[in-house]
């Protein structure tokens, strides 16, 4: 982990979690690993903030949890997207694209 990683802007963690879960159910650790991998270690999420985010998303009804067996055959809590979660992901991803495009425009990097 280098020093040039960036901290996550508010709210983006939720988007990343939803995106990660779009491909199928995962448990907490695997979500954190997956985000770390795909973001090529530039985005740094504090593992400690992942779990409160998961509980928050669950409370909002965007993801739901069930207990299942992990890849090494241990009991683990798996999260998956709900129908509302899918919709939320779509909406947020679009909003994000619009936002980044607009910001890029302003910065003149488009």
């Amino acid at each position, binding site marked *: 982990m280098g020093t040039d990683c960036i901290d996550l802007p508010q709210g983006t963690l939720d988007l990343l979690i939803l995106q990660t879960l779009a491909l199928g159910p995962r448990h907490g650790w695997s979500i954190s690993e997956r985000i770390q991998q795909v973001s090529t270690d530039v985005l740094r999420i504090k593992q400690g903030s992942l779990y409160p985010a998961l509980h*928050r998303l669950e409370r909002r009804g965007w993801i739901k949890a069930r207990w299942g067996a992990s890849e090494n055959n241990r009991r683990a*809590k798996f999260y998956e997207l709900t129908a509302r979660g899918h919709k939320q992901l779509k909406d947020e991803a679009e909003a994000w694209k619009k936002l980044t495009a607009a910001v890029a425009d302003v910065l003149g990097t488009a």
Partner: protein
Amino acid sequence: MSDLLYRMRSLFRRGTVEEEMNEELRFHLEREAERNQHRGMPHDQAAREAKMALGGFEQVKEECRDARGVTLVENFIQDLRYGLRMLRRAPGFAAVAVLSLALGIGANAAIFSMADVLLLRPLPVPNPDQVVVLSTDRPDSPEGLGGVSYPDYRDFRNQAKSFEGLVAYQFSAFSIAKSVNDTAHLQTGVLVSDNFFQAMQVTPPLGRGLLPEEGEVSGRNAVVVLAYDFWRREFYGDPAVVGRSIRINGIDFDIVGVAPKEFTGLDVYVRPDFYVPTQMWQRLSGAAADPLEDRSNHAFSVSGRLRPGLTPEKAQAELETIWKGLEPRHSEADQQRLPRVRTVLKARIHDDTEDARLVTLLLGLVAVVLIIACANVANLLLGRARARHREIAIRMALGVSRSRLVRQLLTESVLLALVGGIVGLGFAYAGIRFLQIRPPTSGDGLQIIIAPRLDHRVLLFSLLAAIVSAVLCGLIPALQTSKADLVPALKNAEPGQGVRQRTIGRNALVIAQVALSVVLLAATGMLVNGFRKALLSDPGFRTDHVLILQLDTSFVRYTPPQSQVFYKELLDRAGALPGVTAVSLGENIPFGTGQNGEAVIPEGFQFPKGQSSAGIMTSAVDENYFSAIRMPIRQGRAFTAHDDDKAPLVAIVNEQFVKTYWPNQDPLGKRLQIGSKKNQWLRVVGVTPTAKYFYLGEAPQPYLYVTFAQNPRSRMALFTHTSVDPAGLAMPVRQLVHSLDPNEPVFNVMTLEQFIGAKNHPVQMVVEVVATMGLVGLSLALIGLYGLVAYSVARRTREIGVRMAIGARQIDVLRMVLRQGFLLSLIGIGIGGVIAAAISKAFVAGFVGLGSLNAAVCVLVPLLLMLVTLGACYVPARRAARVDPLAALRAE
């Protein structure tokens, strides 16, 4: 919704949720450590790195809890437990606080229950807020609802588009017998229009309501719907009652239905026993002409259900248009009437302004009691705040946020208030039992029931009162307490700053309490004084040794000549009973509610424009009436046996009548006309003093007497004057009536003293309620005042020690403390006095015949408060002054 379920699960299955959270995080740590090992770390380091990556285990859990949204509730429960512990640790404080609040809340709940039953409670029908009250008000009587004549009602009902349904009803007493041989007794019935049940959306659970065709032809459909209570009482709830018949005024009526239990009619006071169609009125009354066709007979109450979206104002505008169209059919007097549409609450207030005022007044007074109670508790809490400042400071030093602390302190006061509220409900229950007024039947035989009860509305109100008082008494102490200055507090010293500020606050509290007590005591003193004066005043006639008994020959459908024969026979035989000294007949029983009046035109009196006569209470009496009830004749003569139906028409008026209509003129020989004898003159032959006719506190009323012989009535009261206990004559006189006609029901059989006593009962009750409230308020204020003053003096022990150390004498210290207490109470009494003086004006304007601020109240109240304040200063001041200066300096 799902959010709530989620939170509930988090809360109630907290053990499971906690366990799951642990397991989830443990799993994470293991996987992370495994991966670290995979990358070649040694076992120990792998686990350590995993833990570091996650951050504080407990902290993550706490954040998860926050994210799940359980902390608010959890905190509350925690606060509640903490609060309970604190209260247990200070039982004296808790007891005084709870008792203060219980008295305040209980008194409020009891008074609210009365306000509710008199004014506020919605009608017992579905969608009660759609229902409005219609009336045709007379411009010359600004208060009271003007009744509606049946033809006017019919025109409104046919033409108005603003209403989904318009119903007419009229209460009356009827003679009821279950069979021909059964002894008749009097019950309250109500004549209702055919659409009554349907428009009020009341569905009888047994049988049916009335049918449209039952409102078509006069006298055709003798059907009756029983009220639930009556059905339970008289028929023991027998469902087979539908299809049977019952005799009303000697006519057989088919029972077609039973009204629902919760439906007790549309009136606040009178609960009908049964409902019959309006079209039966003529047959039931035996009237020669159908009263339903008489446009000048404003006997009906009318209620309507507004169409959705319409306001009473719009409906009234429509009725005014219709009323204009009816103008040609109205008499000159009726053209002056104005159709009015009011909400049920407004109609109740308008109909009985005095009750409404009394209720408002009581609610206001009892609110003051609650404020005093809250001030007490606020004081106690402030006092405790100081005792707790170390504890609070420690908690703040440990990182508890101020808002969290305020919440916790407020939870404590909420707890106090809730416990106080529960205990208060006990007081309220006792109070409500006391308030349950059941006066005997009124003069016209209608059973009046005022039954406040401890129902969900009162419970809700008490809860509200408890929460309001929790905030009132808890917020300021909580805010002040949490402002604790950390460093000196922790050093176990007096909080340096804020002392002055707090002293000012407490001085303000002392002043406020004194002022409020002055207002409360002055108000209650005035009320009690005024009512007592009224209760002790002389009614103007004899009330002892008189038995009354009311009869109505229309129940047995006598013709007027038959009636005359019946009453003559009754007088002759009752006069011969042993122990009887005199008998007489009078139409109105003094203090009865259903007294009759006449539209009177006094000769030569110029009425204001638009008014042609005055409604004046009128009683038809026989020639023995005045001598028998010992009402003197001031001028002229009493009626004699010669004033019969062949003699010239005569009348007797009271002095108030003369004063109003013939001021400074000789009333003897003057003439007047009455509504029931159109275009005939009655000559005034005598004048009586102005007595009390309705209640002892009333303003002087004009009153008119006519002779029974010239004005035959079917309903009369027999006044039996005895040389023995009049109650003993009740049975013989009853038997006498029974022997004359077994079908004739008698009612209001009691001594005149009992009758008037029962009429005065509500007044007496109000006096007792007000006096109790004053006492409760006073004792609360005194306790609070004493505690407050004593406490602030005790707090100055150190200062006093300093003063004495530098040479002050005991007497100087005492004088200083007393002077300050004296000043505070003086300011409070001054402020309270100003408010009380302002309020007393409103009282005198609002209640006729009520006392003003009398000397006793003006002197006693300030004196008492002053004494308590001084006493509260003196005791601790003397103790402080006696203390060894050194010890005082070391104190705290």
